[in-house]
């Protein structure tokens, strides 16, 4: 984009006059910026400014509805965060939940996708029906499960007792050793269909010719799965895993409905919500938000680097 030297002094002139002296490439570059401008302004207004503000507030003692302006407190919020055992419990619970749910949702989702991808009578209604759990708002399904898990009148204890698996009622949501399993299975029940749908879309773009050719070459179904299906499904798998991991790390609703502010079953998002909404402590809440961002960033970097390694080998 070099400009003729003679145009230099005119740089300060009106844009319209400069416009006439521009080359086509220059004009196109300007136009591109012009068209991008509204989108950039929106991004700056709704993402960049709030982000910068969050970062700034995390170094202050800002409170909602406070009459006096906020004070700069330096790293005090972060110091308290790092020393707060409840925060570290929240991190542990969130990460455990993420690992369990993402792994099982992926395996079950893949299985379901393979099944509904094959031809069988009633396939259409089946595909629609499997999305029902996912279509129910989480707050509602969580409340429904909370009743099902109830130790006295819950249907789960009732069923298990009828088939003779347990003798005493189990307080699923009260016992520390069953709480995480209980909440993870709700999420798996709810979100596996979504993973299956993503993987199914991936399966459907694999051309049938490849399987036909493989059959002609004498490869059995298992061989076909590992050499054709899995490699070609990779992009869909990556999308599904990243979607689910990020969602699971930000989980709020199901924990909030089931456990409220129970100290040993808070996720990072519940911990943050408590300080920001219930305590109006925006300063400390912003520090928590920044910390959550960092934890999620670690996962993203981990995903991206491991997947890259696989691509190269």
């Amino acid at each position, binding site marked *: 984009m070099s400009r003729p030297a003679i145009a230099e002094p005119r740089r300060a002139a009106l844009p319209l006059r400069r416009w006439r002296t521009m080359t086509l490439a220059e004009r196109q570059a300007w136009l591109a910026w012009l068209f991008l401008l509204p989108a950039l302004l929106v991004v700056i207004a709704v*993402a960049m400014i709030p*982000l910068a503000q969050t970062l700034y507030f995390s170094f202050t003692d800002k*409170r909602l*509805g406070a009459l006096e302006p906020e004070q700069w407190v330096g790293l005090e919020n972060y110091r308290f965060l790092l020393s707060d055992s*409840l925060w570290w419990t929240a991190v542990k619970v969130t990460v455990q939940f993420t690992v369990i749910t993402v792994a099982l949702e992926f395996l079950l989702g893949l299985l379901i996708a393979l099944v509904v991808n094959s031809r069988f009578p009633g396939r259409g209604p089946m*595909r*629609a029906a499997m*999305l029902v759990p*996912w*279509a129910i708002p989480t*707050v509602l399904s969580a409340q429904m499960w909370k009743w099902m898990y*109830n*130790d*006295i*009148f819950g249907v789960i204890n009732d069923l298990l007792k009828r088939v003779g698996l347990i003798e*005493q*009622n189990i*307080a699923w949501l*009260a016992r*520390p050793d069953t709480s995480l399993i209980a909440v993870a299975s709700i999420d798996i029940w709810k979100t596996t269909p*979504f993973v299956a*749908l*993503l993987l*199914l*879309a991936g399966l*459907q*773009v694999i051309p049938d010719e490849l399987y036909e050719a493989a059959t002609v070459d004498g490869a059995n179904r298992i061989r076909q799965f590992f050499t054709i299906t899995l490699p070609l499904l990779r*992009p*869909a798998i*990556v*999308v599904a895993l*990243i*979607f689910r991991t*990020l969602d699971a790390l*930000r989980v*709020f*609703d199901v924990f909030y*409905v089931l*456990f*409220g*502010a*129970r*100290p040993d079953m808070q996720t990072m*998002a519940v911990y943050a*919500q*408590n300080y920001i*909404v*219930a*305590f*109006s402590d925006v300063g400390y*809440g912003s520090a*928590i*938000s920044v910390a*959550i*961002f960092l934890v*999620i960033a670690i996962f*993203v970097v981990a995903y*991206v680097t491991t997947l*890259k390694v696989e*691509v190269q080998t």
Partner: protein
Amino acid sequence: MRDMRPDRLAPDLLAVRFSRRQVLRRAAALGLSVPALSALLAACAGEEATPTQAPAVQPTATPTEAAAETPTAAETPAGTPTVITTPETTYSMDNPPEVFNADQASQYSGATLTYYGDSVGIGAEMDQALAGAFSEATGITINVVPKPESATENYAAYQRFFSAQSPDVDVMMIDVIWPGAFAPHLVDLSQALGEEAKAHYETIIENNTVDGKLVGMPWFGDFGMLYYRTDLLEKYGFSNPPETWDELEEMAQTILEGERGANPNFAGFVFQGNAYEGLTCNALEWLASSGGGRFIENGQVTINNPQAVEMLNKVRGWVGTIAPQGVTTYQEEDSRQVFQGGNAAFLRNWPYVYSLATGEDSPVRDMVGVAPLPAQPGNPHVGTVGGWQLAVSMYSRAPEAAIEFVRYMTSPEVQTWRAVLGSFVPTIPDVASRPEVLQAMPFLEPMEAVERVTRPSRETGERYNEVSTIVFQGVNQILTGQDAAQVLPGVAQRLQRIVG
């Protein structure tokens, strides 16, 4: 696929494998409904924006119910009669008490007030009837606006009005734990209504007095009490409800052992053990009735003391023995359902349970007794105070008219009318002992002598939510198995950080 930088990853994949059109086409082929489909696309769009959005997203997650929620909102009792006649008076919905201060209030005739009143049920109907009578007698127009039903949203709505110094609300209902937080924005009623205030329970007036300012007039009350099964006590040879916590423990144990054979779901005692405001109310009763103090007293954090440790460890011992293990997840309604379903001998709850547990369709309707909560020897019987007050906004354009409306609404006449027809617990002892009120709420009599204890919301003001969360999270940890002696020092330290 070759470019794996995080900012490129998701859009790249979407462009190659899952262009929106493709997703749409495939989804349509799958027979997805439109809402589900748009949700899917919205989900995709959200993720495309890279994880840097996360911190901004977290705080906006919508709570269903937050810690500010208090369990004091009065429920509409089922089957409340609409006309009750006593020898002297006939009480009916379309005949609210006479406006005794009409002469005084008429000087503000022409003013218009906005009143944030009850949101649903009989409370809302009564608001309309009372406001109508007041308007007719005084010429002051009253817009009755139902307040948000959830206490959390209600709190947030008032916070917005006050931070905007809005004159759009004049008179409002405030929860018993809000005076401390809202005091700077409320009119001091002690000049105008100081005489009337003397008739109310002293603890509630004290609760509503912040730095010498009376910021709200008590309107209806709430307190913790013990429900018990009269038939079971009789069956196992107990002539009276338990006096002390130890007695309750023994009785519950005896009844439990006897009943478990026939009903494996049977529990001795149920209460509110979930980590939420209700547990703070329960814990206050446990401590105040056993010499364990009231969390924060005279600006000092007192929660960590030997009596509190002993009492909370005793309660921990109940979980899984006389109380079901699930009690650490129970709120009011969970515990009520267990008791009302005939699955518990004792229940700690608020007065609203009375009309439900003795209602037509209740399996235990003829077997419900009410008593003060037990207390350890040498300590008073206590009940945590809940309930609602009427307050006047400082930004009101007609505060004098608003005060006259509050004077009428909180008067003994109106409280009697509301108690008889709506089962709203009066905040005036004289009203509580009237025969027609006792007929509607027989449990008021045994509760007369109970000491009403308040949560430390006045001292801690806008930080009360934080204080309560620290308390109920700590107590919940104890109930789920930790030693109170290990937990309470940490709780005290956190509280100290707020109290300063």
